[in-house]
């Protein structure tokens, strides 16, 4: 198995506040990797580090073995990393199809076959292709956001808390969507708050605490690990 994405001892933050202290993480081909941890552990920050949205003070990020540390986001996209932010991830005034077309902005070849694939993957989007994306339900908006990212046929997809703020019904929808995408061969790195469900579909998971690695293991291992609960609710430390 080859490592698609690798974070090697990455440190960094915003301004002079360091949030990540030497994070190690990797995603292998075909995997779903989930990052969990208590609030403020630096999960989303770690994802932004991959996408060049953070100034890294140490460490490196490699994509397929190529160093992409501190590459600006627009170039990271071109290298095949797609990132779906937690909020503000669709163009609300554009139609569903236009959102997907924008996802292919940097492509110069014919993207229609990929568009067709995405409609096959998410039939509801085909139905609503002409509707403004902002009028869709929460779950379908996330589908648009992910579909938009997939238009580039990325080497890896980064998802930042795709189920945040969604009701349990939609959550299930999102997790099965993630699985569908993965089944199509796209490795996924996602940050999730709903650890149980996320670990349920994950190949591996990382637990971050205070900007450092804490535990790593398969999804099931982590779910059964009693220390994980303590990390969230304290009492185990101090």
């Amino acid at each position, binding site marked *: 198995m080859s490592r698609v994405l690798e974070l090697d001892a990455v440190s960094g933050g915003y301004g002079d506040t360091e949030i990540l202290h030497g994070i190690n993480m990797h995603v292998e081909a075909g995997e779903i990797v989930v990052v969990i941890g208590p*609030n*403020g552990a630096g999960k989303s920050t770690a994802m932004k580090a991959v996408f060049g949205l953070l100034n890294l003070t140490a460490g490196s990020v490699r994509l397929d073995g190529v160093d992409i540390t501190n590459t600006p986001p627009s170039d990271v996209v071109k290298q095949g990393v797609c990132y779906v932010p937690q909020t503000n991830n669709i163009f609300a005034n554009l139609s569903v199809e236009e959102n997907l077309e924008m996802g292919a902005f940097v492509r110069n070849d014919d993207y229609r076959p990929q568009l067709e694939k995405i409609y096959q993957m998410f039939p509801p989007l085909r139905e609503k292709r002409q509707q403004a994306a902002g009028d869709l339900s929460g779950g379908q908006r996330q589908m648009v956001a992910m579909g938009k990212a997939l238009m580039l046929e990325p080497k890896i997809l980064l998802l930042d808390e795709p189920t945040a703020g969604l009701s349990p019904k939609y959550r299930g929808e999102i997790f099965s969507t993630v699985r569908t995408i993965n089944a199509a061969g796209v490795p996924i790195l996602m940050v999730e*708050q709903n650890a149980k*469900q*996320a670990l349920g579909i994950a190949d591996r998971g990382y637990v971050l605490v205070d900007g450092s690695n804490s535990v790593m293991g398969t999804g099931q291992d982590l779910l059964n690990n009693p220390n*994980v609960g303590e990390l*969230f609710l*304290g009492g185990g430390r*101090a």
Partner: protein
Amino acid sequence: MLTVENLCKHFGGLQAVHNCSFSIAEGTITGLIGPNGAGKTTTFNMIAGELTPTSGQILFEGENIAGLPTHEMFHRGIVRTFQIPHELAQMTVLENLMLVPPAQPGERLWSNWFSRATVNNREKAVMEQAEDALDFLSIYHLRDELAGNLSGGQKKLLELGRTMMTEAKLVLLDEPGAGVNPTLVLKIRDMIQRLKDERGYTFCLIEHDMDMIGALCDPVIVMAEGAVLMEGTMDDVRRDPRVLDAYLGGEAA
């Protein structure tokens, strides 16, 4: 002291807070915890008047204050701090504090021209008060430093200092320990306890440092999915399987 009844806030289709009810008793340090997206900060924003609730009531000392603007909340004695410090970067630490006291005569333009003695006297008093606060927080040496030059932790202390410049009754602290090194967290914890004991503030704090919550707060309110999941001591909370489940995102809570 403060009772929140069936508070709701919807953003478009998103229900950030839904039928949330709890109360905060006078003289307590109440902890507000819960997973990300549970609606804690949204609830704070509504109590502090930055957001108008979609529906529901906020009763403060018996009066419904839901929907009043921030400065009205402030004048009733509700003061908040921010998770990301809102310091006035180009102003000195002292000025940051001196800005806060309400109803300063010098805030009326004409008083500055026509009754300067009153203004100057109050300025002196306000400065004394600010210096006392700086002493209390042991950052007096930073008095004339621009607030923008402070470290993250010092800015957090300054946030706390601002609450000391008011006739606050209820102080809402949004993650006072976030992004602060462990030594300073202990210090902030100590300050909060002392402010409660010495000045009689009632606190409500959002925090993810469970040790801080455990040491300071009784009771602890757990929010999930925009509503209150449970209330009790930190030990109760730790023991309750529903809480861990909410944090780990089990099926519908």
